[in-house]
């Protein structure tokens, strides 16, 4: 089963003076267990694409299929939202509960879980994003920006969706939070599919299988990391990609099958000291 996006175009505000073509003829597919990173300049259509995946937006043209379910059909909506969990770009704008605990537990509401199971998942989820238990009794509105973001991520994690979609999860996140989340996402490898929009892909270079580069609504590049790593534009976004390209130009011969930082370190040591 998989995510399939076929010839999708999306227009905002059709027929008004503000009509805007946000995506143009996008096609790709992602197998269950595969992870994908999405990059591109501001306004290129990344958040639009993500909202098409959980049927929050419906394509103007083309089809989006989640495990074969077409987002166009209304009756599929709730099932699709169960399969695809999305953490939005400014998720804190959607908070409404009185306490952090309730805010996170709300995420699991429609799953018919026991109270104990919900409680277990809430505590697990805050640990994953590096928040202390003491935060659970606070109001979600009285938190710092980064704390809010972590709460929003936790409220999606409790649902344990099959497809996990993040829009800039690391924006405004500190070092411990980033480390904790990356570690957790690595532990999920193979059991879910991750789709992550991020301007700082370095953290996830070892975790994603495919990279998509969007520009002005068009797919400028899409494919396995080892191919896309040499895409010229990407070098402005991913310093490690720049480094790898520069070293290869100088004649270093990398045998990289993953782009994990540790693996890159090994390869550099091997190349510089022993060849």
């Amino acid at each position, binding site marked *: 089963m998989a995510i399939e996006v076929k010839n999708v175009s999306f227009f905002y505000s059709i027929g008004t003076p503000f009509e805007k073509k946000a995506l143009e003829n996008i096609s790709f597919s992602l197998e269950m267990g595969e992870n994908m990173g999405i990059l591109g*300049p501001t306004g290129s259509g990344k958040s639009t694409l993500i909202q098409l995946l959980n049927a929050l937006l419906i394509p103007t043209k083309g089809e989006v299929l989640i495990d074969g379910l077409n987002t166009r059909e209304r009756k599929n909506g709730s099932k699709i939202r169960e399969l695809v969990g999305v953490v939005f770009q400014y998720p804190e704008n959607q908070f409404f509960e009185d306490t952090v605990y309730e805010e996170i537990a709300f995420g699991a509401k429609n799953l018919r879980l026991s109270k104990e199971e919900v409680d277990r998942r809430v505590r697990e989820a805050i640990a994953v994003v590096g928040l202390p238990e003491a935060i659970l009794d606070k109001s979600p509105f009285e938190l710092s920006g980064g704390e809010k973001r972590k709460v929003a991520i936790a409220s999606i994690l409790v649902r344990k969706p099959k497809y996990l979609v993040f829009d800039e999860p690391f924006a405004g996140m500190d070092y411990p939070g980033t480390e904790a989340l990356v570690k957790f996402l690595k532990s999920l490898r193979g059991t879910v599919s991750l789709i992550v929009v991020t301007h700082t892909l370095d953290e996830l270079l070892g975790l994603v299988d495919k990279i998509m580069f969007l520009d002005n609504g068009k797919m400028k590049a899409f494919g396995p990391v080892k191919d896309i790593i040499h895409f010229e534009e990407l070098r402005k976004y991913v310093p*490690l990609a720049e480094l790898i390209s520069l070293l290869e130009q100088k004649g270093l011969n990398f045998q990289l099958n993953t782009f994990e930082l540790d693996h890159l370190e090994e390869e550099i040591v091997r190349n510089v000291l022993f060849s």
Partner: protein
Amino acid sequence: MIKLIDVSFSYGDREIFDGINMEIGDGEWVALVGANGSGKSTLIKLLNGLLVPTKGRVLIDGMDTRDEGNVWEIRRRVGVVFQNPDTQIVASIVEDDIAFGPENLGLAPEEIRERVEQVLKVLRLEPFRSSPTYALSGGQKQKLAIAGVLAMKPRYLVLDEPTSMLDPPSRRDINKIIKFLYDKEKITVVYSTHNPEEIFYATRVIALSKGTLFFNGTPWEFFSNPERVWKCGVKLPIITHLCYKLKKRGLDLSFPIFSPKELAEELWRLKSKM
């Protein structure tokens, strides 16, 4: 000059600062860093009087933020770009939103027009001048929030993670624009960020931790001690991180190195010597 004298601050019974002292001189560029919840945004709100200390005093050019009579003048001198642009965007059309600040300063209409045009241009927001603000992407909203404050030409430019949603080329654009203003208009900059690349523009780094000023020094000093950087909840630039790991493996690299190019050159130099 900005001066904090024995400043304490609490949200209800939650104490954030207990008697901190700080001076930010004219012409400084301070990078404000620290873990989530360390108090960066709280400190920033204390600088323009949006929050006032529970004890102690915050002085802007000698004016106490607790004195009601100073509020207007302080807001004029201290321009703040807040962390979430949605809290800052007030008008429904982009160019009206940029004009909002200058209008409140009581400037002449021609002057307002001129400033709006200028910031639309430098921030490359011209194509969006008549767009509804709700129709902007996350990064475009951040640019708009910055534009509104720049149009007010504040003497103290205070930015709370202003580029967190922007792609690296756009982020570097913004950094350069602010650097240009800093050099040309001799403004003072306070800039909070979680992105280590942005810290280099600063003349001084202040790291907050548990309500104290944990570190106070140059960016170079800050990054020369990775353990301390991490202790402050701050990331190392990825290239610096790799450089650190390689050095620990016995490679004779200089430290810290920040740019991919520099690291590539050094590695090549090492390899050639082998």
